[in-house]
């Protein structure tokens, strides 16, 4: 780890000022991604701004047909939330399947979504549910938010404050864990609501989380595993690595899709 300065602001405003005063400053949430990268000297922020002191960023509420989750809410808190369990049990289950207990008790939804790891679970839920990512500057729709591997439309010094997940009639996430890292090798999230069906795939896409329009159309016509049986999954835009070639990932997308539909 390189030496760095550490700030722990107590309001969003203070955090904003700290970021602006130090270009290249990094936000610290649960630190499950940032700290290992710093320890390996892959990340070298001169300033670390810890969001842990801002109470407003934590917590889960239900309002106007949506679940609002503060950016600093841990995976464990989401997994154990009775609010989430009642409205979007699939989201609680997703959070319960992230990493291990240590990771779940430190890692946050804001950090996960901001980081947009291609193997992360939350991005699939954000995209499938058509969630809105609220930041210190604006509200960003899920379809606009993610734009590539480890990349989002967040600007320098933009802080995710909370995420609103519209409550769906049905939401489920099926994860196929990477045998080594246990991140998603393929994860498929399916949400059915009045406005239609949305399907998002994580872990597999060569440019990160993406939607599966053919599956959405098929499921909108008939919401059943059978409706997507035999659906042809294009492997050409999928990742190939030592854990899975693109054709296997394509196959798994089909399997996980059917399992998510149930």
């Amino acid at each position, binding site marked *: 780890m390189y030496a760095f300065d550490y700030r722990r602001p107590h309001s969003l405003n203070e955090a904003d000022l700290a970021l602006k005063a130090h270009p290249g400053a990094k936000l610290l949430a649960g630190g499950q991604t940032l700290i290992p990268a710093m320890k390996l*000297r892959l990340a070298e922020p001169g300033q670390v701004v810890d969001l842990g002191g801002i109470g407003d960023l934590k917590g889960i509420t239900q309002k106007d047909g949506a679940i609002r989750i503060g950016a600093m809410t841990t995976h464990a808190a989401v997994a154990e939330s009775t609010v989430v369990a009642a409205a979007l049990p699939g989201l609680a289950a997703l959070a319960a399947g992230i990493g291990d207990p240590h990771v779940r008790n430190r890692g946050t939804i804001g950090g996960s979504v901001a980081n947009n790891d291609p193997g992360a679970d939350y991005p699939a839920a954000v995209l499938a549910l058509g969630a809105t990512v609220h930041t210190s500057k604006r509200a960003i729709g899920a379809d606009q938010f993610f734009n590539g591997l480890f990349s989002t439309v967040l600007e320098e010094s933009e802080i995710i404050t909370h995420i609103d997940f519209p409550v769906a009639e049905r939401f489920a996430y099926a994860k196929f864990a990477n045998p*080594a890292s246990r991140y998603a090798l393929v994860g498929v999230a399916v949400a059915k609501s009045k406005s239609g069906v949305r399907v998002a795939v994580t872990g597999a896409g060569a440019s990160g989380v993406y939607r599966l329009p053919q599956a959405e159309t098929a499921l909108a016509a008939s919401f059943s595993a059978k409706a997507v049986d035999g659906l042809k999954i294009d492997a050409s835009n999928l990742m190939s690595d030592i854990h899975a070639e693109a054709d296997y990932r394509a196959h*798994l997308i089909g*399997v996980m899709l059917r399992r998510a539909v149930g």
Partner: protein
Amino acid sequence: MTDQGIGASVKRKEDLRFITGKGQYVDDINRQGQSYAIFVRSPHAHANIKGIDAKAALAAPGVLAIFTGEDLAADKIGGLICGWMIHSKDGSPMKAGPHPALAQGKVRYVGDHVAVVIAETLDQAKDAAEKVAVDYDVLPAAVDPAKTQRSGQPQVHAEAPNNTVYQWHLGDKDAVDAAFAKAAHVTKLDIVNNRLVPNAMEPRAAIGEYDSGTDNLTLWTTSQNPHVARLVLSAFVGIAPEHKLRVIAPDVGGGFGSKIFIYAEETVCIWAARKINRPVKWTADRSEAFYSDAHGRDHVTTAELAVDKAGTILALRANTKANLGAYLSTFASSVPTYLYAPLLSGQYNIPAIYCEVDGVYTNTTPVDAYRGAGRPEATFVIERLVEVAARETGRDPAEFRRQNFITQFPHQTPVIMAYDTGDYAACLDKALAMADYKTFGQRKAASAAKGKLRGIGFSAYIEACGIAPSRAVGSLGAGVGLWESAEIRVNPVGTVEVLTGSHSHGQGHETTMAQIISSKLGVPIDSVSIVHGDTDKVQMGMGTYGSRSGAVGGSAIVKAAEKVIAKGKRVAAACMEVEEDQVDFEAGEFSARGTNKKMTFGEVALQAYVAHKFDPEKIEPGLKETSFYDPKNFTFPSGVHIAEVEIDMATGVTKVDRWTAVDDFGVLINPMIVEGQVHGGIAQGVGQALLEGARYDETGQLVTASFMDYGMPRAADVPSFNVAMTNTPCPSNPLGVKGCGEAGAIAAPAAMVNAITNALGHEGIAMPATPQAVWRAIQKMPRKAAE
């Protein structure tokens, strides 16, 4: 007192400090004036070093020194050694290149040591290390053990043409050829035994310290055998004579073999400590562990089994390329030769065996002993062959094994080993019953109804442990003897200190060795402390590996205890005023036969030190005895493991559904600890079969260099194990123990692959059988079975 002695599942004495964070590992130790070392490592698999510019690094804050291979050479510090000489078929000695602790002109694998930077703080050392500019002339790399001997491949060492260290063989080729010529059936398999990264929980670490007042050196290091480390560093590397060098291996958090070897980092730390007259500390991070801990396995083998019409095995033939990596690690040469081929007979009566092994260099991390060391590789070969031969000849795999079991003991195999005892059918019968083998078909049908495949696989392994008689290993090329020492110091109050040359790094010696003392001397285990891991305390020892601590180290303790009893009888006789041969000792009490005179063990100890009641001309005061124990033979633990797997056809995920293990470890000192060893070993073997596998790309980069990419088994990957024991006491040591530390890792891979291939209905899968690999194998299933 016997409720704590041999055979009792007492809780581990050492666990209190381990689970409350009070263990003292090397990294927990900090010395006055300590400095920190960071190694500049090669990012290339193969390159000439054209120059090293350390000017900027030397000027960086806090830097105390930067050393390279030239500095070691100038101080006449020798290279690291390989302590086992192997001769090729043609009689020529193995061809090994030098192994300098810091590279001299050339780097040979990613992670190879180029320079050491020593600074006041760890961060300063890291900062400065980044400023060391190394000018590399990158060379093509030889990576694949199956291809490295071909002409035109990059040459790792000039001393070893065609990257061939040795071409060794064992057995009778003509007899084997003749047997194959008349065989009714030949089973042939191409086998890859995948390369493993040991991943002990505690990474390696070292602190070197020099005392300029006494000219003494102390090395704290994560070692399984501190005395061997001292011997090598003194006699071969030339750090200091043995009486000037103390090596301490304190609490060590797992080794699995990887901490047997003498490594570059500890060598440099102890050498540099004198050079700069400051303690020098180094602790590996996990990435360094992946790159620089000696790896395990990595064999490419073609193996054949000849069977006659009646299903009797006639002969076995194997040809193995063993990847030794870029340098020969401390015992690397022995693992794929004498620790491998002599086990190819398994539990079977095989009249003729012939095995050829080429030890080869590649531009990869050195490979050496890893839990089982050669025996898992042998077991995988024979148990895959036997299973497939049974399938191909339409026989039940259990019955085919039984038909060929050795039943008469002692049994001389055609490949060196003389098995002393065993009852293989007893293990098999017990395992079959425990595994509900008869009703497997019902479970298979139930799985099929869920769209899943189910398979069952056997592994009837044997291993040679308690390694071993010094004269035997010496005749096979070992540079050391493999006895063990024990010193028993009875205190005047009757408490006991045992100094052992074995080293515990997770095995629980502080408990099991105390249990041996409890049984022999009749004292409670809380009155016994076990001292190990310090060359200033324990005079000499050979350390812990090869499941030898119970059989060899424990036996040495028994021998020393017998001497303590003998001396105690003399003291007691004098005190009780009877003849020595009138004194009996039992359950902690000396008594004079035919009288009501008695003395407790503690009373006799006190009298031995008070020395008032005996003639010093006849009896020396004190109660302290030593034994160096050298066994007559290896021990031969064996057993039958049965794995039952269920495979999700849609994803290729293999679930280990049931596991039956029936092992014959002879006498058990602490059954709970033995079961723990079995559990851990099976988990490691399942890891090898399903998840683990170090992979290099064609340029020699290790692409599985972190837990993100190298899959380790976790608790959820294994079922609750169904474990039982049979017991044929080992005749060659006084405890009757055989050793249990490696059995699980030896047995499990073959059982797993046999179960998976049984489910698939074909043999086309290699380890690790990852979901992707299994899914692809499912696509190749015969139509009917897949339906």
